[in-house]
């Protein structure tokens, strides 16, 4: 089991563009959470998907949206990119909603120029 995988590893975009990040959960997990980690900060919760629905959401604007597929993999979409969106985006998977231990992926480094 490769654990949680994320793609791509790195991404460079310009302001105003749109980006899609992908996450495959650990085998046996059905819940995916997304976090944004700015430089020098701890991860900040964006949203969580369970049973293909957004179950919880952090304090992020509607420019941030997501999706979960029937195989439990997930996408994070960010529209109208701002310079401040530059960060490491982490995906974490768990089982049975938010109560399970979360396992993190290696992250996608997004740079917005």
């Amino acid at each position, binding site marked *: 089991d490769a654990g949680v995988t994320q793609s791509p590893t790195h991404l460079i975009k310009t302001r105003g563009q749109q980006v899609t990040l992908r996450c495959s959960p650990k085998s046996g997990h059905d819940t995916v959470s997304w976090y944004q980690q700015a430089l020098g900060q701890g991860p900040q919760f964006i949203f969580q998907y369970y049973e293909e629905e957004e179950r919880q959401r952090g304090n992020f604007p509607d420019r941030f949206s997501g999706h979960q597929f029937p195989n439990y993999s997930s996408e994070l979409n960010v529209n109208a990119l701002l310079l401040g969106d530059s960060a490491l985006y982490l995906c974490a998977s768990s089982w049975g909603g938010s109560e399970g231990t979360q396992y*993190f992926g290696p992250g996608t480094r997004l740079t917005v120029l």
Partner: protein
Amino acid sequence: AQRVTQPEKLLSVFKGAPVELKCNYSYSGSPELFWYVQYSRQRLQLLLRHISRESIKGFTADLNKGETSFHLKKPFAQEEDSAMYYCALTGGRRALTFGSGTRLQVQP
């Protein structure tokens, strides 16, 4: 609102010295507390959770509800303990709230 505070950005100790990484939290209900660790070039991973009440790699952490703290301790630091440590909280089926992290440097 739930909040986690790690007051130290950097903690530097010598090998064999005791370590205490501080974590204070704010939460109105009954929280579940965690310590996550990130070693160089590795992903974030769970070190321990308070409900397990176990010692992992010699580290322990006790939840003090009176002081709203969950400090991470190890009696004798090893060089391989050098890493970034994050305290995190969840409660009421909410997602994790992380502190800003403390970098532990263990010098030889």
